[in-house]
């Protein structure tokens, strides 16, 4: 249990990688603190912080467990959680493909422009032909490489007899390239390689921006299941204990669960009493006492004594797996939500095709040659290119999420902002959401010596109460006293000795309504009370949300009394004793009534509700799974980012509407000109690019949307 010391493992065997998520890092100081604090420890080869993803990759000796690293980080002042062990997995492969395509298109565009400018400024004869051939030589591989994201998406849409935005783009690019090759072969005057490649470049830029934002935070739902214990000691009929992997366990087996171990399966306690940490499942941070006959769930951690547990459910039958399944299903029903841009393009793409075809047929009938008709048709395709339309949404969303990140709110997905703007009700979880979720000790009555002794003792234990006490004291700048012979007595507390006196942190003699511990120094005993405080600006945030027209309610798994106390303080309605399925039902009922609820919660028990709600936000202290299910994650103790998120989301949608308005207006102006044959493909490409720039410029106004308050 003396965790920091356990890190000095001498067994320099093979190295292994662990990735931890540390949502609390905020500045360069944090990076230095973490990298040096971890790097200096025996057995840790290297620690590298990824600040954007709020992650730390640690390369360390096999002898150090994930838990040791978490404790180590906690002592440095950072809350950390291990994430699925897959250090080399790249979850942003698509972004990389897009960026490569973008780079190639940029290279092609610059060089072809160089040649085109010479042609326009009067190069003729052999030189012009040479330049056209060179352009073709550059453009063909560039189009083939950079166009792949569009071609494959267009092919996919056509295979299912639908069209999307990529279809007119693909046709435009392929036709322009094809026509240019023909012109080059024939030694013609004009080639449109520059238009084709420029089009690709701008479209790829929009798409890469969109994608970067969507991948900003994404980790597998497998992180949830990895929180279950991975193996257990199974008691054999002859009394010996065999270590078995979680997937080999069968109902009816008897497990011996050591202190500090996580349960790999659901079960019933057969022998022994213990205190278990259920915070991962219920969000309740106070440990729960369990005895004979009590039901315990996979993922819970045994804090004190070894207990015998008879397995009742394993693998996908466990409560945690059930939550994962509910979450998955709820998430799928929400992903059917069609993004605005896709909805627009569904109407837009066929219109563009018809227009271009009409232009071609019209000019043919009017007696223009097939060549001129085709050039006009291509110009129509390019000038109506849904580029501004395609950028209208992502550009605004990227700028808005950038502004929100600076205020401590991470939006995971562009469509989340669309949904956040539409919410009309907000549902809060209590513990860890409206409240801070960890046990804050009331240490004002203790003198400095008492505080330092309490800190030294509390640091030695992983018990939630000790963790809370240690955190409160370290936040006050208290250093630990030099307490020796520290040992944890199961069920009693921690004891040690300090300058000849025996000191201890023990469970209180008489139980009161609140959580408390007794600090004993020599003969003198002081009681330390714990409370789960409301976030400092909870009331203000609720008021602001209500001012924005959102109704606020609270749904919590906690006892009715605790819930109504908080509800009364905030002046909102609240319901206690609601289980995960109950929360899901409550949200579904709201949705059935036509409301669009925003769920704010942190516990794993909120997971399904977070996934099912119209939009959802989780605090940075939430379990991985909840962060995964939520649309946005806020960091820090303040709740205000929740109100800010709704406000910025609404502004974003206003800008998006303006962008759409502009894009449509531009088309109304440009299309007739193109149809009339006044526009060459190059001018079309330039006009299209300018329209995109206007949209991006308009979106940049959002950069200050989150400024001003907070």
């Amino acid at each position, binding site marked *: 249990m003396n965790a920091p010391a356990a890190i000095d493992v001498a067994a320099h065997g093979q190295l292994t990688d662990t990735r931890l998520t540390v949502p609390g890092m905020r*500045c*360069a*100081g944090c*990076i*230095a603190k973490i*990298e*040096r604090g971890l*790097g*200096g420890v025996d057995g840790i080869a*290297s620690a590298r*912080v*990824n*600040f*954007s*993803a709020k992650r730390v990759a640690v390369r360390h000796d096999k002898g150090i467990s994930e838990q040791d690293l978490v404790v180590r980080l906690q002592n440095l002042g950072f809350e950390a959680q291990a994430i699925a062990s897959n250090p080399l997995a790249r979850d*942003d492969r698509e972004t*990389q493909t897009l*960026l*490569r395509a973008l*780079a*190639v298109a940029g*290279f092609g565009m*610059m*060089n072809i422009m*160089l*040649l085109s400018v010479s042609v326009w400024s009067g190069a003729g004869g052999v*030189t012009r032909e*040479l330049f056209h051939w*060179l352009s073709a030589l*550059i453009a063909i591989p560039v189009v083939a490489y950079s166009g792949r994201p569009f071609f494959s998406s267009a092919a996919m849409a056509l295979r299912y007899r639908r069209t999307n935005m990529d279809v007119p783009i693909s046709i435009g690019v392929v036709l322009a390239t094809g026509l240019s090759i023909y012109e080059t072969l024939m030694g013609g005057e004009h080639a449109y390689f520059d238009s084709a490649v420029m089009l690709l470049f701008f479209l790829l830029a929009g798409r890469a921006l969109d994608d970067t934002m969507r991948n900003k935070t994404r980790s597998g739902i497998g992180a949830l299941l990895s929180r279950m214990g991975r193996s257990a000691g199974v008691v054999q009929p002859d009394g010996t204990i065999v270590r078995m992997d979680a997937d080999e366990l069968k109902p009816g087996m008897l497990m011996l669960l050591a202190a500090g171990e996580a349960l790999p399966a659901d079960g019933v306690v057969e022998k022994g009493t213990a205190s278990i940490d259920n915070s991962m499942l219920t969000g309740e941070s106070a440990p729960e006492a369990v005895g004979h006959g009590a039901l315990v769930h996979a993922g819970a951690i045994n804090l004190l004594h070894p207990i015998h547990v008879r397995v009742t459910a394993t693998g996908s039958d466990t409560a945690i797996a059930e939550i994962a399944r509910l979450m998955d299903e709820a998430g799928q029903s929400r992903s059917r939500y069609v993004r605005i841009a896709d909805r627009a393009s569904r109407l837009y793409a066929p219109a563009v095709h018809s227009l271009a075809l009409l232009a071609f047929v019209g000019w043919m009938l009017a007696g223009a040659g097939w060549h001129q008709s085709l050039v006009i048709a291509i110009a129509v395709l390019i000038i109506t290119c849904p580029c501004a339309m395609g950028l209208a949404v992502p550009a605004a969303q990227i700028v808005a999420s950038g502004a929100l990140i600076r205020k401590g709110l991470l939006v995971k997905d562009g469509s989340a902002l669309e949904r956040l703007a539409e919410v009309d009700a907000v549902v809060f979880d209590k513990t860890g959401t409206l409240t801070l979720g960890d046990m804050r000790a009331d240490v004002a009555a203790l003198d400095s010596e008492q505080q330092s002794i309490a800190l030294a003792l509390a640091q030695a234990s992983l018990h939630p109460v000790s963790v809370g006490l240690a955190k409160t004291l370290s936040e006050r700048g208290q250093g630990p006293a030099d307490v020796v012979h520290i040992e944890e007595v199961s069920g009693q507390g921690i004891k040690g000795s300090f300058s000849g006196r025996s000191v201890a942190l023990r469970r209180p003699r008489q139980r009161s309504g609140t959580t408390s511990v007794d600090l004993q120094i020599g003969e003198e005993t002081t009681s330390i009370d714990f409370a789960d405080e409301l976030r400092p600006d909870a009331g203000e945030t609720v008021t602001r949300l209500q001012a924005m027209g959102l109704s606020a309610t609270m749904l919590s798994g906690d006892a009715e009394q605790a819930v109504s106390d908080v509800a009364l303080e905030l002046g909102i309605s609240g319901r206690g004793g609601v289980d995960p399925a109950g929360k899901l039902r409550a949200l579904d009922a709201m949705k059935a009534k036509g409301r669009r609820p925003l769920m704010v919660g942190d516990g794993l028990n909120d997971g399904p509700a977070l996934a099912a709600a119209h939009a959802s936000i989780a605090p940075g202290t939430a379990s991985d799974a909840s962060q995964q299910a939520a649309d946005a994650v806020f960091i820090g103790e303040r709740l205000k980012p929740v109100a800010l998120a709704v406000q910025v989301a609404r502004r974003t949608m206003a800008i998006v509407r303006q962008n759409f308005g502009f894009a449509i207006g531009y088309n109304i102006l440009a299309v007739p000109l193109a149809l009339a044959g006044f526009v060459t493909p190059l001018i079309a490409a330039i006009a299209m690019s300018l329209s995109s720039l206007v949209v991006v410029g308009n979106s940049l106004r959002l950069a200050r949307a989150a400024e001003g308050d907070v």
Partner: protein
Amino acid sequence: MSVLLYLIPIALGMGGIGLAVFFWAMRDGQFEDLDGAANRILIDDENDAS
């Protein structure tokens, strides 16, 4: 005009080198933590043991 025979390959070659460098930097993971890179400038490394 014959100067073009040198200049165009040089221009393309320079662009190509830039592209290759970008690909290398991306494979090397230099774009994975842009915010971190911006912050790392501020870290004082006088007592950096590692």
